[in-house]
């Protein structure tokens, strides 16, 4: 295999830079004027999101149709169509961006492709109906820089997502890709690199927040004939998609960071442990590894040094506990993913008994840019103890669902009301869950807490991997706690008793309460049992599993008491406690409820009050959501 030298890398960077410069410039400048071939623009680029979310809305068809329209109009030499990673604004996806005027088209369908090409690309006239409408001013906004969703964001780990073609290594190199590696290998000692990471203050983004530089330092001290660098891409938090989006949108940053880590700890072997449920991320990583091998970036004697490195992919098979590093290592060895006690830490004895360093995807994605821009730059962002940014998957009852990245220290209020655009449908904010099944519920009073590892833990939740689910007045906190417990019970590996049996008992008590059969003693029991599980479970999964229950008890005790004493679920979620009726005074007999009832439980003649047959009613709430006259009562 050929050797790639630093000069060769520089050459590739220069040759690929032009296309990328255009994208970078149009992102930094503000151009109100739209461009088009008719207005004298010589070259245009169309960036189309190719992440899983947008693909689910047929974004690959949009790309096909764009290309078809471009060919039909014979302008293929003047326009490029690029499939990129996630832009982050999933609520408005699929997204198509036009360079150089930075027009940001939202909710594009394959049928819109022709109009975009004819009107905008050729004619220079924006397709107004596809532009984002600012909910406050109700005006069209063409440039993403002027959207509240993007204004407070700072993209470091996501720096290349939505900018480069993830399946083209040259575009990554054009953005200074593999330069950090080249410099480290040829100009820095492993100790120097570890020092930079330590000084930068980078902490593990998988949840616990352990300092990355220190972790690397430990792994370096153990001597063995083989060592392993493992990338933990087993993103198991339901409703979180940060790591997946990074792997889909910028796989090379993960590959480069693993190599840098290998150089630092003295390892030649990289393993990526990824969920088999992420086919697109797997594909992009495979392509990235293949391209890096072909260029001579992965393999023997990298950049002419005596450092060699290669990466293999290992598949997970759907087990949340495998996010825990000892469980992950067992799973890679082909066994059941059960955790073991630490010490020994993986740094001493990990995969196949060799020293192993495990880092999460987002942590790794931060590494190359820290080396490029320096420790001081990174540590100037964020709070005293939490440096840099954090990526969150913002979802639930929020107007702008999407993938966001904000500096540590940003408040929940800024995230929910500015970036997220507030609660959906003008409903009242009730709680936000961070940290997934291991985290807790934060309420109104926590909204002004600056987000960092310590403050979230102090507030009874945790940073976690970055899931952030917003809930409104229609969400029942007892049901939410039950939902998370169902997940934990399903995912408990069964090895230790507190987690296997304790969580099951918690779930039974919660089920009793949601069915109106709980007692006040049950509430006490939830608390004592929850705390016992936290203190005694073997691994991170068990030790954090009661958090949703304990934090909801803490913050929403009244709601629990209502369920127990009055048999009321004020959010209208606990089916066993609900009866649906139609108020004859309000019902106009429009038939909307009857038409939409999936159980045929509503009877009545047109323009006469309808009635619900309680024996047929499945309490799905469809009628209530369809009634325009507020005639459906739930009690």
């Amino acid at each position, binding site marked *: 295999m050929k050797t790639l030298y630093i000069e060769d890398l520089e050459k590739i960077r220069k040759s690929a830079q032009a296309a990328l410069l255009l994208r970078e410039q149009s992102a930094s400048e503000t151009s109100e004027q739209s461009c088009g071939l008719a207005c004298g623009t010589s070259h245009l680029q169309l960036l189309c999101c190719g*992440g899983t*979310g947008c693909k689910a809305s047929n974004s690959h068809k949009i790309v096909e149709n764009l290309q078809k329209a471009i060919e039909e109009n014979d302008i293929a030499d003047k326009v490029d169509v690029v499939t990129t990673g996630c832009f982050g604004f999933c609520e408005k996806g699929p997204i198509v961006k036009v360079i150089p005027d930075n027009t940001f088209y939202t909710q594009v369908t394959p049928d819109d492709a022709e109009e975009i090409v004819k009107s905008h690309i050729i004619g220079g006239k924006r397709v107004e109906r596809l532009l984002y409408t600012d909910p406050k001013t109700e005006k069209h906004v063409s440039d993403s820089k002027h959207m509240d969703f993007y204004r407070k964001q700072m993209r470091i780990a996501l720096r290349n997502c939505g900018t480069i073609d993830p399946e083209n290594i040259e575009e990554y190199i054009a953005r200074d890709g593999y330069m950090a590696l080249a410099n480290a290998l040829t100009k820095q000692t492993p100790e120097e690199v570890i020092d930079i990471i330590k000084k930068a203050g980078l902490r593990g983004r998988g949840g616990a927040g352990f300092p990355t530089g220190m972790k690397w330092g430990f792994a370096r001290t153990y001597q063995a004939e083989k060592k392993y660098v493992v990338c933990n891409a087993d993103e198991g938090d339901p409703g979180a998609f940060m790591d997946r989006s990074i792997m889909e949108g910028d796989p090379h940053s993960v590959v480069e960071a693993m190599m840098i880590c290998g150089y630092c700890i003295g390892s030649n072997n990289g393993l990526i442990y990824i969920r088999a449920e992420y086919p697109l991320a797997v594909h992009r990583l495979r392509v990235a590894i293949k391209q890096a091998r072909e260029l001579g970036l992965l393999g023997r004697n990298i950049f002419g040094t005596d450092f060699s490195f290669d990466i293999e992919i290992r598949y997970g098979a759907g087990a949340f506990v495998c996010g825990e590093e000892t469980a992950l290592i067992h799973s890679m060895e082909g066994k059941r993913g059960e955790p073991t006690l630490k010490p020994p830490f993986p740094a001493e004895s990990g995969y196949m008994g060799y020293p192993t360093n495990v880092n999460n995807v987002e942590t790794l994605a931060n590494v190359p840019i820290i080396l490029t821009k320096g420790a001081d730059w990174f540590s100037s962002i964020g709070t005293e103890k939490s440096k840099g940014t954090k990526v969150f998957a913002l979802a*639930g*009852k929020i107007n702008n669902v999407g993938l966001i990245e904000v500096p540590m220290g940003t408040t929940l209020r800024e995230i929910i009301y500015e970036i997220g655009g507030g609660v959906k449908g003008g409903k009242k904010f009730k709680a936000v869950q961070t940290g997934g099944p291991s985290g807790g519920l934060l309420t109104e009073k926590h909204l002004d807490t600056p987000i960092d590892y310590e403050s979230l833990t102090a507030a009874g939740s945790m940073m976690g991997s970055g899931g952030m*689910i917003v809930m409104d007045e229609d969400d029942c906190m007892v049901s939410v706690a039950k*939902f998370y417990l169902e997940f934990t019970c399903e995912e408990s590996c069964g090895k230790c008793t507190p987690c296997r049996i304790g969580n099951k008992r918690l779930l039974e008590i919660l089920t009793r309460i949601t069915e109106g059969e709980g007692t006040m003693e049950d509430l006490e029991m939830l608390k004592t049992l929850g705390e016992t599980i936290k203190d005694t479970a073997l691994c991170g999964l068990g030790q954090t599993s009661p958090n949703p229950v304990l934090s909801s008890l803490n913050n929403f005790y009244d709601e629990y008491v209502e369920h127990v004493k009055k048999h009321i679920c004020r959010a209208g979620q606990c089916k066993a406690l609900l009866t649906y009726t139609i108020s004859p005074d309000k019902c106009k007999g429009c038939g909307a409820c009857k038409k939409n*009832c*999936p159980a045929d439980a509503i009877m009545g003649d047109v323009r006469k009050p309808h009635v619900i047959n309680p024996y047929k009613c499945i309490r799905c709430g469809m009628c209530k959501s369809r009634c325009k006259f507020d005639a459906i009562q739930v009690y």
Partner: protein
Amino acid sequence: MAKEIKLACNVIEQVEAICDKHGNQPGELINILHEAQSLHGYLPVEMQRVIANKLGIPAQKVYGVVTFYSFFTMTPKGKHPISVCLGTACYVRGSERLLDEIKRVLNIEVGETTPDGKFSLDCLRCVGACGLAPVVMIGEKVYGRLQISEVRKILDEVSAND
């Protein structure tokens, strides 16, 4: 419990070939199971015995791994496998109610297949299309922002297109 189904000779051969490809290494068990499942659709006990024999490990080890991971299944899927997303984002936007409705319409529970073999029902945790919540997948197709009142119509359509 699923009925014991005798494996065809060629399936056994193919599974053995997969084991050989991975050097019959017990450490490769999960990769082998992934390939075997994508070949056959599910992992019946008989197939697990074949794999155990090839790798020289007890069949209970294979069974232990198959039942540990939610991605592996021991029952054949329907022609149109339905997956309801129960990620938190979909949950708070009503996916549990969608699941109840699908169960009611098809008269099956999670993990079961309809008697005619057309539909099987499963849950999964996050498709990754949280912007479209609640999400249901039928085969490869993603149905976003699905309403309870649309469930029957969509299932009828899928069924009619056979």
